[in-house]
């Protein structure tokens, strides 16, 4: 559906995006992750034809951005970061303007704006000036703007930034709902969000793609270490340490917390050699009371930190 090849953008001498290659299939939700200033917004701006790449090609369906930018703009809906919309217009007037420009048939305009009002939950603010809307509502109007002509590709730049937790859940729900049929690319620096909504994530750092795979795969391949968390009662820290540190596969053991008889431990171990059966066997032989025992694979957060560490 979308094919980005060796995309590069220089602002004067600084390189914002450095030879990015990306493939997005139809019906896929791709999350673009990266720290601030990694080049996410620049990439999306080039994808939507707002910025001209220094070099590299972008193809959407059979169109290239150099020659058929207008065709691409027609099938692509875009919500820029923090939804910059005309302040002094009423929401309804604005959506009507977008419908005109997007070539929605005059007879269908009213119905389409109604549909979007329901989908994005903006019916109650339809007749308010955009400048008076809260950030969450503005974002939703922006989303309605992006989806006006039912585009095949939806590009969203940090669609949930600055929203409260309830609004974030709602916007995510909307994205997932649309994502069943449409191709969606969105950028974020909130990892749990990418994990919750995306089929695939690409992590950008210093203008380069440092990882590009499904969320599950990413955690698996990069998270080769895992943690075992154990909570024990009626146990002595020194004895526990003596007993468990010698289990094969456990590389380190740390006492996280020690309160009136409760002991929380963290064991680092290699994922390949699962030491859990052995640990359980040893605990069973003692008189300790096992309250909690679970394995934590490395979170996306840790993967992200690992990949985007300043070296």
């Amino acid at each position, binding site marked *: 559906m979308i094919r980005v090849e060796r995309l590069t953008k220089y602002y004067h001498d600084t390189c914002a995006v450095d030879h990015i290659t990306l493939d997005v299939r139809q019906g896929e939700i791709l999350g673009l992750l990266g720290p601030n200033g990694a080049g996410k917004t620049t990439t999306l*701006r080039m994808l*939507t*034809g*707002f*910025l*001209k790449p220094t070099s590299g090609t972008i193809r959407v369906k059979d169109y290239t951005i150099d020659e058929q930018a*207008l065709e691409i*703009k*027609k099938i*692509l809906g*875009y919500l*820029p970061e*923090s*939804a*910059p*919309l*005309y*302040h*002094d*217009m009423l929401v309804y*007037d604005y959506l009507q*303007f*977008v419908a*005109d*420009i*997007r*070539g929605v048939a005059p007879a269908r305009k009213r119905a389409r704006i109604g549909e979007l009002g329901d989908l994005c939950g903006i019916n109650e603010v339809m007749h308010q000036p955009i400048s008076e809307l809260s950030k969450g509502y503005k974002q939703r109007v*922006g989303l309605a*703007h992006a989806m006006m002509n039912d585009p095949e590709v939806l590009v969203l730049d940090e669609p949930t930034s600055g929203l409260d937790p309830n609004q974030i859940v709602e916007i995510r729900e909307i994205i997932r709902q649309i994502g069943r049929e449409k191709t969606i690319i969105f950028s974020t620096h909130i990892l749990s969000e990418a994990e919750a909504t995306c089929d695939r994530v690409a992590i950008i750092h210093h203008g380069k793609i440092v990882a590009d795979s499904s969320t599950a795969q990413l955690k698996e391949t990069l998270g080769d270490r895992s943690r075992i968390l154990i909570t024990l009662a009626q146990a002595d820290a020194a004895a526990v340490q003596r007993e468990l540190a010698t289990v094969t596969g456990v590389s380190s053991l740390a006492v996280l917390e020690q309160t009136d008889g409760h002991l929380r431990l963290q064991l680092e171990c290699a994922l390949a050699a699962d030491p859990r059966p052995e640990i359980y066997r040893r605990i069973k032989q003692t008189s300790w009371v096992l309250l909690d025992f679970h394995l934590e694979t490395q979170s996306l957060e840790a993967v992200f930190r690992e990949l985007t560490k300043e070296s």
Partner: protein
Amino acid sequence: MRQALRICRKEFQAYFLSPIAYIVIAIFLLVTGWFFFSTFFLLNQASLRNFFGLLPTVFAFVTPAVTMRLFAEELSIGSYETLLTLPVTNRDVIAGKFLASCAFITAMLVPTLAYPVTVSLLGSLDWGPVAGGYLGALLLGAAFSAIGLLASALTRNQIVAFIVGMAICFGLTLVDQMLFFVPRALLGTLTYLAVDSHFQNIAKGILDTRDIVYFLSLGFIGLYGTSLVLKAKH
């Protein structure tokens, strides 16, 4: 072109959503009305010559105020990005905004039709120069709009856009008043560059292609400059 007209309609409506439109129109009518009628009865002539004589100077102030927000506001709130990722070209955007400004200036001139009507009731008015004057006013408004649009595209600050636009327009209207400073070699060029003589020719009812070409080229330079500035932003 249809996209340009849609943008034009939106921009034209936007003028009347903010108080700017009403303030600009009110000031324009007050200034022209006052200066025209304060000497009208003293001169005791049934002509609009005074009104049209004043127009380039007033337009040099008013037109940049009309055009200042067209790009500067979009650039400062970032809606420029939203607009340009809709299926429109740079040319559509520039043409739409330019036409909106021209339409606004036309709307601003409509109430002044009361002047010739009043004058024609008081004496025998020659309608030829009046028609010429209004045609000239439209050409002048369009040319100044193009310049104001260029000034607006240069900055994201509306006040800067207004001052730059006004400086250029005002310079063009005043350049033939300052000719005694100028070396002889430049005299011809500068006289040609001045707005006033071209405008007054048309306002006398003389339709010379030189004057019309002057206004059209002024407009073209403004619009082309705008498109270059916007292209550099990508």
